[in-house]
């Protein structure tokens, strides 16, 4: 019991230290926060106003005037942040950034939007796009990392920040071809035997995801 107590004591400061990074209060306090705090203190003077998410976030840089040369990517999932503020720079950059001769450290991000595969480069116009099941690939120079994304959203901001929020994303080498085929067959049979609209929609979604998986693995 003494051992466990000392283990607990040793763990506590580590827990506290790990949790620290997010407890920094930022001086951002834009106007929305101020109006809220004022309104709160007027109506409920006895309690401190609750904090809002803005005070827990790192502020984003403002929109630059010229086309930026790097793209900062945040790729988040409910269970992990795959890429957290990872910067991708394109040093050999020109007015037309795509496909230059010296493609040594070219960066390209391809996202599976509902309108098709969309390429993202630094200086992309601000966009909000919904994702469909498909392959997301990060090209960094010569290395390519591919993930299969189930669905989500991608926000590209004017200050060259890209946020990708996906519900599920797995690296392609973790997918099993046989299971994908089985799933596809299962959902096709479900669609043919579906009666209500809801069942049909669910089966259709299953088919979409599995056929995307299939093409990701084969293509």
């Amino acid at each position, binding site marked *: 019991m003494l051992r*466990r107590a000392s283990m*607990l004591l040793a*763990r*506590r400061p580590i*827990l*506290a230290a*790990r*949790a*620290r990074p*997010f*407890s920094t209060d930022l001086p951002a306090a*834009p*106007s*929305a*926060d101020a*109006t*809220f705090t004022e*309104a*709160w203190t007027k*109506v*409920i003077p006895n*309690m401190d106003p*609750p*904090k*809002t*998410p*803005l005070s*827990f*976030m790192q502020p*984003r840089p403002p929109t630059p005037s010229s086309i930026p040369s790097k793209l900062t990517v*945040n790729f*988040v*999932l*409910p*269970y*992990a*942040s795959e890429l*957290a503020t990872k910067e991708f720079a394109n040093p050999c950059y020109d007015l037309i950034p795509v496909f230059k001769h010296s493609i040594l450290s070219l960066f390209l991000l391809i996202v599976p*939007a*509902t*309108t098709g595969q*969309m390429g993202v480069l630094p200086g992309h*116009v*601000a*966009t*909000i*796009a*919904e994702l469909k099941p498909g392959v997301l690939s990060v090209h960094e120079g010569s290395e390519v990392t591919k993930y299969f994304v189930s669905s*989500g*959203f991608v*926000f590209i*901001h*004017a200050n060259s*920040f890209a*946020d990708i*929020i996906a*519900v599920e994303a797995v690296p392609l080498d973790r997918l099993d071809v046989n299971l994908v085929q089985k799933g596809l067959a299962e959902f096709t049979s479900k669609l043919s035997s579906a009666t209500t609209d809801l069942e049909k929609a669910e089966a259709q979604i299953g088919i979409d995801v599995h056929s995307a998986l299939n093409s990701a693995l084969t293509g």
Partner: protein
Amino acid sequence: MAMAALRREGRRLAPLISPRTITAVRSSPLYPTLEDEGPLGVRHISTQVVRNRMKSVKNIQKITKAMKMVAASKLRAIQTKTENSRGLWQPFTALLGDLPSADVKKNVVVTISSDKGLCGGINSTSVKISKGLHKLNSGPEKETKYVILGEKAKAQLVRDSKKDIELIITELQKNPLNYTQVSVLADEILKNVEYDALRIVFNKFQSVVSFVPTVSTVLSTEIVEREAESGGKLGDLDSYEVEGGETKGEILQNLAEFQFSCTMFNAVLENACSEQGARMSAMDSSSRNAGDMLDRLTLTYNRTRQASITTELIEIISGASALEG
């Protein structure tokens, strides 16, 4: 006359010899001395009551220590999940900003609390903040409804705001928290409740001893468009091109729902972490108090025991000296 005196003596002693347990507990707890009839009429003062009390306090101390260990291990498990989910709501705040002071007609306050008790004051704080938000957003044509997650908030809010409660959801942590479960929950809420703004009230986990009450606001598509048109924080939302879908409104609607489920997921995890942390400190102070109480009772016990030994000795010695001379 002697008989009457004896009878009076008997009546005086009777309540002392009668069943001690219940009456003794009700009387002064610190000095429950009782007289025992030993052999040869020697009287011992009984330490039974103090001993019983010490046993029960010791058991309570053991139980609260065990509960603290359990809470610590649960906290470790859920803390990694929470920290991993913290990246999830940030893109939404970066895009849509955070407007807790948006003036809306239909407010819905989603209060997140725990199902089990013994976790300090975090549930009361959440309920107080929810009631504060209700007050803040009250006015002509404005209404605030509650959606309650967790038994503890339900118990507190049912008492005075019963007519404002839309949905009550309990037993959230029966299975380990995961995104699928929370998104189904979010779906239920969005389907059944009309809203212009959803305000999620929860305790954000800063560290094992500090929990910050937080409010996350999710605005409906109409309000977002209204704010975007009026400029200010969301002014540059129109500059974003919206890809895909038939209309911009459809994508924004999906976006709002996705935002709600992501913020809910993070909020539920943070609240669970805070609950375990608060329980740890509550149980820790409880074991410490039990320890203090045990020390005090031990002193009383020893005093009583020594007093009874002294009384015995005095009686024996005075009896012996009476025989001698």
